[in-house]
């Protein structure tokens, strides 16, 4: 049994917050609502209620969700006694901001860059957007957190050979997942979560790359490090991606992937595979419900909230675009609550 008593108070607070997570019945009610306004009305008696009262237009709902996500990340950072671990989620935002700045720097982007940067840089990372922008403009990479500066150097080197903005995303994603592996790897539950996440992302992305006609060298760069499935397994299935990959997968992924591929073949859509993967990955954190002493409930709450926000966003975006209720229900992620 984990005896990390540093988290006794934090876990108590998280348990109280978990009770306020949205349940499946509520999500189904939201899917069946007539309009986005009705969905917002249903959300008014949840944690989102106070922010929603300030919302003037249903189309601006994403700002509320982003601010909610920022609050959750701030809360977990505040409650955490292992900032190295919880900071990873803030670094994720910094990495995304870096992607944007690096792409603008290395591509022939013609729009008004200042406005574009201000509109798309996200708040909530370790480095505030304004400071990140200034450090980047003055080329003061050394002043950035130690996790960010090596990435920029690596991209500078790689870009001498290849000029595709996609490469920036690939390098940064690889760095981010290496960092996640390094920080989460010591915790059994979080490592299990991360392995599932990386394996399923690699499988899905391997299939996506196949559909886009990507070659072996792209795959080698694209596959994320830190999963249980090795690169050679993917590279050996390169000629018959869908067929031979399924047969080479471990039993725990085989059924899920076969169902996802079957749905893709019938509907030319990855949404079923993505839904099954998301549910399976979050399912790895179920045991955290029974942990009373440890950081796991904090991280699990953060990830559960992320999944909840994904569901809300999907439902409201769907309602704004008149998507049928049954389609929304079929795409719904299994709530953690």
């Amino acid at each position, binding site marked *: 049994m984990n005896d990390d008593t540093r988290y006794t108070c934090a876990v108590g607070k998280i348990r109280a917050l978990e009770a306020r997570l949205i349940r499946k019945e509520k999500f189904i009610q939201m899917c069946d609502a007539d309009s986005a306004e009705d969905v917002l009305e249903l959300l008014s008696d949840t944690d989102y209620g106070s922010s929603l009262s300030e919302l003037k237009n249903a189309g601006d709902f994403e700002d509320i969700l982003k601010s909610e996500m920022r609050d959750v990340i701030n809360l977990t950072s505040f409650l955490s006694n292992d900032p190295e671990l919880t900071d990873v989620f803030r670094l994720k935002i910094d990495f995304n901001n870096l992607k944007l700045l690096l792409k603008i720097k290395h591509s022939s982007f013609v729009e008004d860059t200042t406005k574009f940067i201000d509109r798309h840089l996200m708040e909530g990372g370790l480095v505030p957007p304004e400071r990140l922008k200034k450090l980047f403009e003055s080329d003061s990479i050394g002043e950035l957190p130690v996790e960010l500066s090596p990435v920029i150097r690596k991209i500078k080197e790689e870009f001498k050979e290849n000029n595709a903005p996609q490469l920036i995303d690939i390098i940064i994603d690889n760095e981010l997942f290496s960092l996640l592996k390094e920080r989460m790897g010591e915790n059994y539950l979080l490592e299990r979560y991360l392995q599932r996440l990386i394996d399923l992302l690699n499988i899905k992305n391997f299939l996506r790359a196949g559909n*886009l006609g990507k070659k072996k060298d792209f795959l080698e760069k694209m596959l994320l490090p830190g999963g249980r499935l090795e690169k050679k397994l993917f590279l050996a299935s390169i000629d018959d991606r869908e067929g031979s990959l399924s047969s080479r997968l471990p039993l725990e992924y085989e059924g899920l992937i076969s169902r996802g591929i079957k749905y893709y073949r019938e509907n030319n859509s990855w949404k079923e595979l993505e839904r099954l993967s998301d549910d399976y990955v979050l399912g790895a954190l179920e045991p955290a419900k029974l942990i009373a002493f440890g950081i796991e409930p904090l991280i699990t709450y953060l990830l559960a909230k992320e999944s909840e926000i994904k569901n809300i966003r999907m439902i409201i975006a769907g309602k704004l675009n008149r998507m049928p209720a049954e389609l929304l229900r079929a795409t719904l992620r299994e709530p953690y609550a």
Partner: protein
Amino acid sequence: MRLNVSPNRMEVLRLRKRLLLARRGHKLLRDKQEELMRRFLELVVENKNLRDDVEERLRKGYQNLLFARAMMFADTIESLLSFTTRKADVTVSLTPLMNLRLPQLHLSQEGEVSCYGFAETSGELDAAISVFSETLPLMVKLSQIERWIELMAQEIETTRRRVNALEYILIPSLDETIRYITMKLSERERGDITRLMKVKEIVR
């Protein structure tokens, strides 16, 4: 409607030549109208099939995009798609067809369709982008066909007015005028003969 001309033999000859020319022009214009109409109907059918195909593809593409949009924040998608290396260019050349100069659109594309990493993006975005990328050449073709149809419709309308003007105004007027002059000349000839017979009787 009779033309306002002096009734003499020279005029008849001139009018007969005009009538012959008008009939020949009428036949040519009628043939042109028929050929334009045939091609126009072919294009209308092709346009309908192509439009249905494009609309179906776009419907699927937008559905994929909608799911991608539901999975990711709107400004994330906007920022991802702003850095594409795909470039498209359309050049126009003109093809002559029965007095028409029809624009021929040539689409050239280069670069990668996918311009983002896969780890943080939804597969629905790939599907949407692939569909839109495959649909673009069809949309260019559709716009070319629709412009052709528009130009042909205008030409058919003009030709129809010319054919009608020849058929219902010019040719009947020429016919009527020729008949009138011929009758006038015959009448004059008969009058001359009568006058000659009367003079001959007085002289005798």
